[in-house]
């Protein structure tokens, strides 16, 4: 059935359809309507769940871990500084192997304070043992959230997942969404069952205890194996999802890459705009293509290699500044995936703090890449949407 939903309500709808048992959430812009709407529908009885009001995101995640260990399907959602405050329990959830699914509405972390979209919040959590899915539109938010529960709870995975949606560009964008029927979701996603570690007073065990140097490495290795296993599980779950709901989900999506001279790799809501620009430039005979990265953790390096191994010029767009790094995170991963090929890979940074990733900047990137491909030029504009004279911005005048 078609409904008009914004990205946040799509996430709520997915959590409801997934029959999440316990919700512990703390509101933060632009996530707030997720925690508000969930509390409303739990209070009205539309959703049968326990809603725990907490005083911080740190506690929200702690409560979700506890709930998960009792065999409940647990859920929360956050953004930006909220995710940063959760950091300690993010690591704990992954180590405890609590398969929590969390929509994260991407927003810059202060300072300077910004309410608006960038990927710095989730990128700063990327190596802590969570899976990460990045979404293009509101339908993606709903679909990948439902699928993420099934992947996270697979007994070979038992790893939490973030479903990332761009603040405002998705969280507050109203779109037409195909919402599946509850009974179909029930068949796709059966009730969560505990397998290994659990909290049960009748059968006590230590959870999250100190592990000496004899075992720590092996415990971490088990988490690595889960990540390595994830690709097969994700493919199976996406296959089942397609059979059930008729929508194709992807680990990476190749858009008109086959005969493309240059390809841009990117994530999130901008991938829709990039597809639009690809179509426009193709109509003018320019051979450009795009790879939409959906799964960022675990990083699908084999898929990226297969998609791009023969490409000579590749651009990678990071919505994250990565201060002090040689390359920003998505670009670093793409370079590593294509090690041994002779691809010329260019890093682009933009769309920070809500700055719009618009068609003219995307076109500029493609034209730069095409010029590099044809040998006309060697340079690219690293920070693509930087204003002129950036060092003069916000200059402090004293004694005037």
């Amino acid at each position, binding site marked *: 059935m*078609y409904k*008009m939903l914004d990205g946040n309500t799509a996430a709520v709808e997915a959590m409801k359809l997934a029959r999440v048992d316990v919700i512990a959430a703390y509101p933060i812009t*632009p996530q707030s309507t997720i925690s508000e709407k969930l509390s409303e529908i739990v209070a009205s009885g539309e959703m049968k769940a326990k809603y725990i009001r907490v005083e911080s995101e740190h506690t929200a995640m702690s409560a979700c871990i506890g709930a998960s260990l009792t065999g409940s399907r647990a859920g929360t959602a956050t953004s930006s500084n909220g995710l940063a405050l959760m950091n300690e329990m993010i690591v704990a959830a992954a180590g405890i192997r609590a398969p929590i699914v969390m929509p994260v509405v991407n927003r810059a972390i202060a300072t300077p304070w910004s*309410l*608006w979209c960038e990927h710095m919040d989730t990128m700063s959590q990327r190596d802590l043992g969570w899976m990460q899915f990045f979404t*293009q*539109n509101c339908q993606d938010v709903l679909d990948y959230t439902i699928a993420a529960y099934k992947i996270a709870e697979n007994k070979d995975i038992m790893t939490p997942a973030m479903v990332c949606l761009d603040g*405002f*560009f*998705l969280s*507050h*964008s*109203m*779109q*037409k969404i195909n919402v599946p029927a509850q009974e179909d979701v029930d068949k796709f996603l059966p009730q969560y069952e505990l397998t290994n570690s659990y909290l049960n007073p009748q059968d006590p065990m230590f959870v999250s205890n100190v592990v000496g140097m004899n075992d720590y490495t092996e415990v971490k290795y088990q988490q690595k194996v889960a990540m390595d296993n994830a690709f097969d599980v994700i493919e199976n779950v996406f296959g089942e999802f397609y059979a059930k709901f008729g929508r194709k989900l992807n680990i990476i999506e190749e858009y008109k890459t086959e005969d493309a001279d240059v390809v841009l790799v990117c994530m999130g*809501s*901008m991938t*829709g*705009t990039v*597809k*639009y620009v690809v*179509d426009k430039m193709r109509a003018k005979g320019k051979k450009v293509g795009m790879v939409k990265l959906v799964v960022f953790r675990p990083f699908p390096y084999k898929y990226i290699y297969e998609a791009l191994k023969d490409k000579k010029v590749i651009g990678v767009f990071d919505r994250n500044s990565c201060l002090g790094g040689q390359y920003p995170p998505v670009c670093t991963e793409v370079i590593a995936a294509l090690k041994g090929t002779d691809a010329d890979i260019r890093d682009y940074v933009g769309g920070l703090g809500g700055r*719009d*990733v*618009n*068609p*003219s900047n995307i076109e500029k990137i493609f034209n730069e890449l095409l010029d590099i491909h044809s040998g006309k030029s060697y340079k690219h504009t690293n920070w693509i949407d930087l204003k002129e004279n950036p060092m003069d911005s916000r200059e402090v005048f004293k004694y005037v």
Partner: protein
Amino acid sequence: MIKLKFYGLGGQGVVTASKILSTAVSLYEGRYAITVPSYGYERRGAPVNTSIVVDDEPVLVNCFVYEPDIVVVFDASIIEKNVNISEGIHKDSILVLNTEKASVLDKYSKFGFKEIFYADGTEIAHEITGVAVPNGSMMGVLAKTGVVGIDSAEKAVEEVFGKKVGELNAKAARKAYEATKKM
């Protein structure tokens, strides 16, 4: 593809209006739309805008509208608040304006829009709903441009506002539709 930009003041329901339009074309006309609200540090009375893209195909582009085909102004005073409502317009761009005042129309006629569709949406809303919030009524004026049918606009107004308030606002939309003039 039709690109629209709505301008108004915080509290006038500009973002809600964008939801009404996207609901109307998406649910009742089998087309597609996305809204991209430009949230700032809004407060009641501050200028706000929102972008909407309407198409027969699923909308891929997910960013602000820079070259609007239709501009809707919910409060004519907005041009006195440092807002350039004609930014990015082209020779075929249309203006939808909430006013009946000749002096205001005169000012707006200088922006170079191809056509102006206008009615006093605030007055019509006040008369029918008792509240001077023009977002329902202005949907009727907008429908006159042909971007959306008045029947689907009415249904969407009811859907977004809920039955009771929605019925009154749908009436306001119909009345504004019939009252719309063109210059």
